[in-house]
């Protein structure tokens, strides 16, 4: 049995339950649609998943630190509207840093409320989701924003350009994934995030400034949202006030699919990339097969449960939960 093999292989292999599910899926889709396994399609899916992917990187780090961030969806709306609106007003070279600064401020508010005041992150970020959505609407007066000169601006490079023949969003996503993977696995900061998420009390007893670590995770998350907003704004060359609506749950689903534990203290940035790609490929594969969009939801349901099940089953070495 597969499971016995997993068990015998020890922890290193056992942690890859999701990778196995992913590969099975890719193979299945390849057989079911001849368009699926083409360079064009793969590239297109990678590019599409870059925006959600970059956000998921930040949320992964927040979740490893033991918290949730549901405000990323409306924060994305905020950042995109801001950067697009400012683009025509003060030019892209100023719009980008101004937007990043404003977004980091929102992240700081999250970080302050959760990290320093120790309020429950689910409710805080849910509240912030609503507050930020309101702020966006007030800022834009509820109107869409657009970039007037869509052809001429170098801002287009982030969403539409390419670096060495690879679409810029893919490059940004890849670089950021590797960067944050390094941060989390090889630096003291990463270690501290894992510790704080795993056992906050013991972290304090070990001299780790827990509040600051949590604060920093929210800044990272906000930064990721900012980067995603640049790609989104540049790709669409405009923005609605609610572009990011619902992204928070897609991002969370990707993080979970990547095997990051919502309890904190465990998870991996690289595996979140896997989660993101898996969701994107499901969406893509089903549309290629001509399925109505809601089958995609049904399949996602099954995939999330089966994949996470495989993952936890592999870790505990048996398929069924020991709960009586």
């Amino acid at each position, binding site marked *: 049995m597969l499971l016995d093999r997993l068990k015998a292989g020890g922890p290193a292999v056992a942690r890859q339950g999701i990778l196995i599910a992913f590969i099975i899926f890719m193979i299945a889709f390849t057989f079911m649609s001849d368009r699926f396994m083409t360079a064009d399609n793969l590239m297109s899916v990678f590019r599409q998943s870059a925006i959600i992917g970059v956000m998921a990187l930040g949320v992964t780090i927040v979740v490893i630190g033991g918290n949730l961030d549901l405000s990323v969806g409306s924060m994305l709306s905020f950042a995109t509207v801001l950067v697009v609106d400012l683009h025509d007003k003060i030019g892209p070279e100023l719009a980008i840093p101004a937007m990043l600064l404003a977004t980091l401020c929102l992240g700081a508010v999250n970080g302050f409320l959760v990290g320093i005041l120790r309020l429950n992150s689910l409710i805080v970020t849910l509240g912030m989701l609503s507050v930020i959505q309101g702020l966006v609407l007030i800022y834009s007066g509820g109107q869409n924003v657009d970039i007037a000169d869509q052809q001429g601006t170098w801002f287009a490079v982030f969403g539409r350009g390419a670096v060495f023949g690879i679409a810029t969003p893919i490059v940004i996503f890849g670089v950021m994934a590797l960067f944050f993977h390094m941060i989390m696995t090889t*630096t003291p900061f990463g270690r501290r995030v894992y510790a704080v998420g795993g056992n906050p009390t013991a972290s*304090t007893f070990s001299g780790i400034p827990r509040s600051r670590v949590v604060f920093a995770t929210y800044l990272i998350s906000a930064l990721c949202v900012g980067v995603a907003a640049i790609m989104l704004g540049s790709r669409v060359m405009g923005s609605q006030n609610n572009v990011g609506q619902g992204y928070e749950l897609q991002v969370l689903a990707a993080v979970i699919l990547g095997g990051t534990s919502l309890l904190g203290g465990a998870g991996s940035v690289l595996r979140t990339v896997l989660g993101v790609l898996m969701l994107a490929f499901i969406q893509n594969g089903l549309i290629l097969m001509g399925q109505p969009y809601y089958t995609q939801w049904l399949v996602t349901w099954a995939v999330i449960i089966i994949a996470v099940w495989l993952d936890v089953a592999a870790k505990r070495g048996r398929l069924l939960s020991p709960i009586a």
Partner: protein
Amino acid sequence: MTDALQREPAVPALRLAGIVKTFPGVRALDGVDFEVMPGEVHALLGENGAGKSTLMKVLAGMYQPDEGRIVIGGREVRMTTPLEAKQEGVVLIHQELSLVPEMSAAENIYLGELPRQSFGRVDWRRLYARSDAILERLRCKFRSDATVAQLSIANQQMVEIARALTVDARVVVFDEPTASLTDAEKVVLFDIIHDLKAQGVGIVYISHRMDEIFTLSDRITVLRDGQYRGTLETALTNEDEVTRLMIGRSLDLSRESTPVKAGETVLAVRNLTCEPYFEDVSFSVRAGEVVGFYGLVGAGRTAIAEALFGLRNCASGAILIDGKEVAIGSPEQAIALGISLVPENRKEQGLVLQMSCRDNMTLPQVQDLTAGPFVSSGAEIAIFDQYRDRLAIKTPSWRQPVGVLSGGNQQKIVIGKWLSMQPRVLIVDEPTRGIDVGSKSEIHTLLRELAAQGYAVIVISSEMPEILRVSDRIVAMYHGRITREFTAAEVTEDSLVQAISGIAAPAEA
């Protein structure tokens, strides 16, 4: 002891035969045989990680054995859940408390079998009446409607023990029940065990305290590395033989007080007050000495340690390091000042359970173990290896998540973590709770060695032999105040007991 001639060829209350249990990477039990007669107290001994708790969890239906048979009252049984074990009359008093903190003591005692009325309602009157009766029997002073979270650890342990009295048990297992009990409660517990024994219940008793084993048990079975090592009649053996069976060598249990050349005063505390935990506390610790803090549970010793480590706001008083007054606002600052604290509760305060052994050990200093921006894995492993050898930590590799180690080995990881910081002041709070005799004496030796190397060491312990063994000076506390200070030379057991129970007049102005 029961008269051997009169003993019928009775059916054992419990027989385990050839039990094998493996965890990923660990063979925790390797063909263990074990037998308890009705009315017998059978002690189970072994080093930390020998597999005692695992064996008992197999018995209680919490783990499924890979191989082996369980025979209860002459009938082979297969128990897949704790519920089934309970129905077979097996009660396990857990090593780690297994209570629901927000619920009342009574509900915890009858957890899983609350008395019912019509419509599935709880019969509160019956519940409280029965629980009060049991607590009465255990001579507990709190009422059964008290919330468990608000009870002291010792009383929580009594609630756990009370469960043994709720059912008609055939076999009761006590897994280190005395680790957090005071002597008074111990006496009650021993009475209860005698009662159960008289009723013909088979009793398994796990402890690292030899004195208890020898006062209570009829037979002793020793495990080592998951293997059965033999069974001894308690009356016909002695501590030395048992120890040798357990750890493969004898222990020198003599008092370790190489007289110290105490140096400069490193840490001084003046009139420190932190209500309601302690008041007006003054003492000092010099380099090269071990100061023991002794008192009853709740006397305020832990709170002092926490204050020194920057975890408590103190209303008044001063802390001086090297004669200079310092403000310690957080553990970070305390660490920077060279203070280390091995906390009392390793699971909650000491360890990140899902992290590897190595990562736990280097956690407080990971910021400094860097090569460029990266953590230097080599430096970390070097530290881990050093303290694994020094403390004889048993783990397959540094990658093992600390949560699956046995309790004693977990404790060693915490000690190693703080020793590796090379602190000037080392505070250890209940350092050997749940640690086997061999490691315990190693830790004692280690504490003495550290002092000899010039560390200032504070040991907080509720075990008198331990305090007497390692301390150069002993500070006795009662109700948040220091009642007396002794030097190793002048202290006697009687005077110490008096000082911690408020009988002797406080030695303060």
